[in-house]
């Protein structure tokens, strides 16, 4: 499995370092400053969207689930980082073979925090709005692919991040189901102040 992981990694990372502008575009698309901000402003748009109150309320549940899932996914990544033996980043394990076109992160390679957070945003909203969930998974896929392309993650790290995102969303969705009255109360309070 590790061998297959490394084979796929080198196949994708082998594409880097040939065309400077493609590297630059992927570096921007996959950094921590582009897609997360796009996803957050998109979530603001989702919060306000809906043809009627029921529709909007469903979207607002999705936004709450999405943000909470991202928070829990981040937390799970920290827990897993503390529990699992550190997996070296590709550029650390194969310094002579990897095309590194990004800064050198100093946390463990597995699981990918960027993949966990971005997929958690997508899976969180998917619980309440399938179509939006699929749309939000496009930027998550881009950032995940970019991390492999840039030489900072193996494909298995991304899959680990994706699995944690699903786990985080499962936890959040279950808590939201149990705590539905509290969420209703929160949304009602926000509506009183014209925020929801």
């Amino acid at each position, binding site marked *: 499995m590790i061998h297959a992981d490394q084979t796929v990694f080198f196949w994708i990372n082998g594409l880097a370092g040939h065309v400077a502008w493609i590297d630059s575009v992927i570096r921007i698309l996959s950094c921590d400053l582009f897609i997360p901000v796009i996803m957050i402003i998109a979530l603001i*748009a989702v919060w306000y969207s809906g043809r009627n109150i029921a529709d*909007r309320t469903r979207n607002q549940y999705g936004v709450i689930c999405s943000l909470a899932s991202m928070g829990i996914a981040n937390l799970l990544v920290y827990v897993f980082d503390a529990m699992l033996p550190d997996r070296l980043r590709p550029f650390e394990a194969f310094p002579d073979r990897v095309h590194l076109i990004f800064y050198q992160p100093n946390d463990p390679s597995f699981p990918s925090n960027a993949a966990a957070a971005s997929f958690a945003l997508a899976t969180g909203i998917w619980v309440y709005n399938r179509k939006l969930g699929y749309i939000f998974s496009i930027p998550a896929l881009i950032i995940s692919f970019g991390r492999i392309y840039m030489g900072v993650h193996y494909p298995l790290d991304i899959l680990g991040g994706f699995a944690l995102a699903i786990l985080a969303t499962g936890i959040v969705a279950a808590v939201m189901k149990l705590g539905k009255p509290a969420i209703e109360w929160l949304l009602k309070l926000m509506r009183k102040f014209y925020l929801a």
Partner: protein
Amino acid sequence: MKGYIEVSSWIFVAKYCAYVFIAVIGMMQIIAAKWELKGISFFRDKKWSYIFGTLAIIAVFVWYFGFSGLNLMNRTFDTPPQLLWLAISVLLALLITFGLSSLINRLLPPTEISDKTQSDGIEMLKNKTYWQACSRYFHRGGSR
């Protein structure tokens, strides 16, 4: 250690906050135009809200990634401070949108909405500024 120099730089944080702030301001204007929330729009004509919002978002992304001196080969943020500054910038942008649109639209005629379902939450911002909506709420002792 070189990679961490930029993290401690307040200029880097200020640029990031400005980038998020302007992007959210732009998005709020597109939202105002799309859902006809006149009370939070900076413009009477929704066409201008679309133009302003779209240009603001495109311009700030081009500036931030093209001309702000950002070097992505340097380490940028750790997750907790990034989330903190992101949240602060978003909240500030929402506050400024509500405040500035209330000032710009202070002459917007307050319309009484008889249908209860239409006056629920942000629906109110279709005909009232955020300030007018809140004042109305508080003048009625917390009930609509």
